[in-house]
């Protein structure tokens, strides 16, 4: 592995006599060369602190960080061969675009000619050629973001670190920039660590996603693994939307689980853990894993409490017994829209349902 974190912990002294605050708690993470890994989690989950420890702005209280086989725990940022893209862009306001991008190369005392060539090449990569002499305050948010990216990329760092780089852009631009970042990252095959709290961003951009909560890693996996097989309620809830229905284990075989829930007997996918017959289990039912008024095989009856037409999809809240289930039906052109307070039938798409590991 190229970049590894082993049991990395960071505690900050509490304010005036309070207890220590553990921002990052025993985080272990292995990142392969050329991989883009996203640290995803709600604010305060320790993702930024983890990134800052990788960058060298904070030193771990415990644990080790290795880069390319060498321990770098206490190495200051400027000796780490990594560059960082900041949430606020942190563009030097008193320098032009050219000077900003060339900054790191000047620090490294590269010959002028080489600097010039590399700046030109990098600006081309981020599609900012011709902007060399602009001052930062003459640039739009997206352009500033590109300058920040170019400034980091030009260093050809061993690891590129990005701290919520898109959170200050508007929605359209964000979408465009995140595809751009992914394109460039793939093109030059640079190892990257990306911090975000936006799950869509994480899903679209990453090779692997690390979900963090309260300083700990909840789950590491590819976007597909994370979405399909969340290890905990927190992950299931944080990535996409989920209904949680409790059931009782009836049987367990070959990774399939027979459960009773809502008084029905269903077979669902299960994690690799061991499930004991008769124990309670939580089933993750995503809104798109249900069908309304199916032609046949309906499982439960319910009443529509809310229906919202969003254009590409219709969202429903359907009350089944005591529980309110969120449901999504796509492509409403071909479907009836069920008005509020009408009775409906629900069919669970059994293949897609997933039981959380027993500890949940």
């Amino acid at each position, binding site marked *: 592995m190229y970049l590894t974190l082993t049991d990395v912990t960071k505690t900050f002294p509490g304010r005036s006599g309070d207890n220590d605050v553990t921002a990052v708690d025993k985080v272990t993470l292995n990142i392969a060369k050329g991989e883009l890994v996203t640290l995803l989690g709600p604010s305060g989950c320790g993702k930024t602190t983890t990134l800052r420890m990788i960058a060298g702005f904070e030193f771990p209280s415990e644990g080790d960080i290795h880069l390319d086989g060498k321990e770098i725990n206490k190495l200051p940022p400027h000796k780490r061969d990594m560059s960082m893209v900041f949430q606020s862009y942190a563009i030097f306001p008193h320098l032009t675009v050219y000077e900003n991008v060339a900054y790191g190369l000047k620090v490294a005392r590269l010959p002028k000619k080489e600097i010039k060539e590399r700046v030109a090449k990098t600006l081309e990569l981020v599609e900012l050629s011709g902007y060399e002499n602009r001052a930062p305050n003459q640039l739009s948010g997206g352009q500033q973001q590109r300058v920040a990216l170019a400034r980091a990329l030009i*260093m050809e760092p061993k690891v590129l670190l990005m701290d919520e780089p898109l959170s200050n852009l508007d929605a359209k631009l964000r979408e465009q920039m995140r595809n751009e970042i992914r394109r460039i990252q793939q093109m030059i095959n640079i190892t990257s660590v990306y911090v975000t709290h936006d799950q869509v961003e994480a899903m679209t951009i990453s090779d692997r996603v690390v979900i963090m909560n309260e300083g700990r890693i909840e789950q590491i996996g590819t976007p597909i693994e994370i979405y399909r097989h969340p290890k905990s309620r927190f992950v299931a809830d944080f990535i996409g939307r989920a209904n949680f229905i409790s059931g009782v284990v009836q049987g367990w075989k070959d990774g399939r689980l027979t459960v009773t829930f809502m008084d029905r007997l269903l077979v669902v996918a299960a994690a690799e853990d061991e499930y004991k017959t008769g124990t309670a289990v939580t089933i993750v039912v995503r809104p798109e894993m249900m069908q309304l008024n199916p032609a046949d095989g309906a499982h439960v009856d319910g009443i529509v409490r809310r229906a919202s037409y969003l254009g590409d999809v219709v969202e429903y809240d359907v009350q089944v017994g005591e529980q309110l289930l969120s449901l999504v039906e796509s492509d409403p052109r071909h479907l009836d829209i069920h008005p509020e307070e009408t009775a409906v039938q629900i069919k669970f798409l059994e293949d897609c349902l997933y039981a959380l590991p027993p500890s949940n």
Partner: protein
Amino acid sequence: MTTPIAKQSSIKTNLAHRYREFALIARDPVLLVGLLLAVLFILTFVFFPIGKVILRAFADDNEAFNIEYFLRYFDPYFSRYLWRSLLSTMTLGIATATLGTTLGFVFAYTVVRCNPPGKRWVHILALIPIVSPPFAIAMATILLFGRNGLITAKFFGWEFTQGMNDIYGMDGLVFVQTITFFSVSYLMLRAMLERLNPAMEEAAHSLGASKFYIFRTITLPLLIPGLAASFLLLFVESLADLGNPLLISGNVDVLSAQIFLAVAGEFDYQKASTLAIMLLIPTLLVFVVQRYYVSRRSYVSVTGKPASGQILVKEPVTRWTFIAITYAVLALILTLYLSIIVGSFSKVWGIDYTPTLEHWKMMLNRGNEAIMDTTFLSIMATPIAVLLGMMVAFLVVRKNFSGKDGLDFGSNLGAAVPGTILGIGFILSFVVSPWLLVWALYITMSLFFVRTLFNTPKEQLSILLGGSVLVGLFWYSQEFLGEIGTMYLLGGLYMALAAYFFFMRGDKRSGKLLAGLGFYLMMSDLVLYISYPIASLSRQIDSSFWSDAVFQLSDYIQVLFRVPQTILMIPYLFMGMVALDKVRGKERPLLSILFLGIGGALAFVGNPLAMVGTAFIIIFAFTVRSMPASVRAGVASLQQIDPAIEEASNSLGANAEYTFRKVTLPLITPALLAGLIFAFTRHMTSLSAIIFLVSPRWRIVTASILSEWEQGGVSLAAAYASSLILLVLLAIGLMYIVTTRILKGRSDADLSLGA
């Protein structure tokens, strides 16, 4: 539940935190040095002098415990007079604060909300009182409205007889102080008004509130913290003011003037100290209330940017009423300043208004020295104040450590206490060597020295002992060598060390550094070979102006090489540590003892820190007074720089030093320049803090103005004041050109940063 054991362990972990924090700072040597310098400076020049004043009030001339002057407040013979003067001081403070804040608000409201014609000029003219000498307004008021005033006597033909209500007294004093101090209030309230979010008032408007209702229920309540802050600040300024009361208070006695008279007239330091405590109590109370109460109740963050899209008053009656008042006051201010200038050109004010250059000639003759001394000392103090201020600002904004609040408090205290008190404190502290302080400085520095260089307590202790024995030897050798000889000896030793580093160790950088240090020490005497010829040259010049100027130059050159040795010890020990950085092995402890011994000995050469009568006591008094403004300017500008910008530079491979040089420094340059201007003007115009510190050798213009005025040279005093105002305006103009031209108008250095 907290059991006693749990509590104890929490104290323990708490201490562990503090230690860890300190260890974190210690890992950053630049930071540690900065912190140490700031702390030592504040300790030496703020806390020590103030402490001296407080203690002096409880001791008679023989240093026996005595509270006679406090008891006088309860002695029927004195008490009526004492309480009355206390009461009039408070009355003055409250009246000035109320009127000044009101006027400041009117100005702020006019400029921000009423869009007056010539807005820019209104702003600039409103700031003039801030940069002019503290008693200029009192002088001008007497010239215009006094018993022989141009308006009262000449236009109205009033004749003043005994018992008539003239301009002298409480009414005149309040008027003068209001005009003098309202600018400060204006600046504070303008900043607040600009940062009020217009959406709040628009929200109230959309809910159906009328303009006046909005003002009463939204605008005013939001401004109350600002108004309170302005009131408190003006109250303190009014209490601390010395120049105006001396000129215009008449029969009314106020504390600041009484303190001045106790020292200058009676030489009774115990009395002065007692009165100083009476003045210190309300001042510190207000300072603390302002810091810990009012400023935390604020709804408006003053550090933020002005809100865009200000609401403008369109209703003509309100708008023009505000504008008219503003214009009228500005006209009054202009007339007042004009009268000073006219006064300086009038033959005999009040009797013969014939224009003449006689006073200016006289001033250039007699006041030449004062003007040059003041300018020189102000320039010397400016970089010290600004660098220290920026350093404190950097520590306060960017670093986390315990005692940060204390550092901030201490650095602000210097300007918050009335100048007279600080002045007395300086006299009491530095008239003879303050051995306690000298020892404290030596012990702090030597502990820092050994703790930074060595790890085990055993090593630390032996180096400390060895070095201190050496210090003792040097101290003893003064008996035979005298001060000058000792300086040559210490300088020679540095030279020898330089040779050792340069030739034997091949460390050329340290060698040059040490040679420079040694040479500088020797220059304290050698400088006479430069300054004597210059002084004798001055005697051959006929024109008294140039002769004076050249003579002064010889003095100024000496000052450069005669920094008090105790102060020198601090950088010399730091430099020693720099040189020792690369030394390893057996030489390390040996050389450490030498560096500690030679450097530390500097603290005890001659009469350490007995600075009364020298240039340095004035320079340090200036510095203490203007540093807080630099701190505030620095804090304001650093807070606007995203820390990520520095981190970005760091992550691109630049170390802390490169980052500071190429990123931080260019970004804070405007604040730095604003700090420089403000510090300089503050030095040039300060009176209360240095009036006791002037000596025949070092004269200060403000003090000269006062003495000329008292001797009846009204026009001469006016000429002095005009030239002082001119010099300050020149400095501001120069700085303005620098900021707008050289920095290409990247940021306009606003004087308001300093206030």
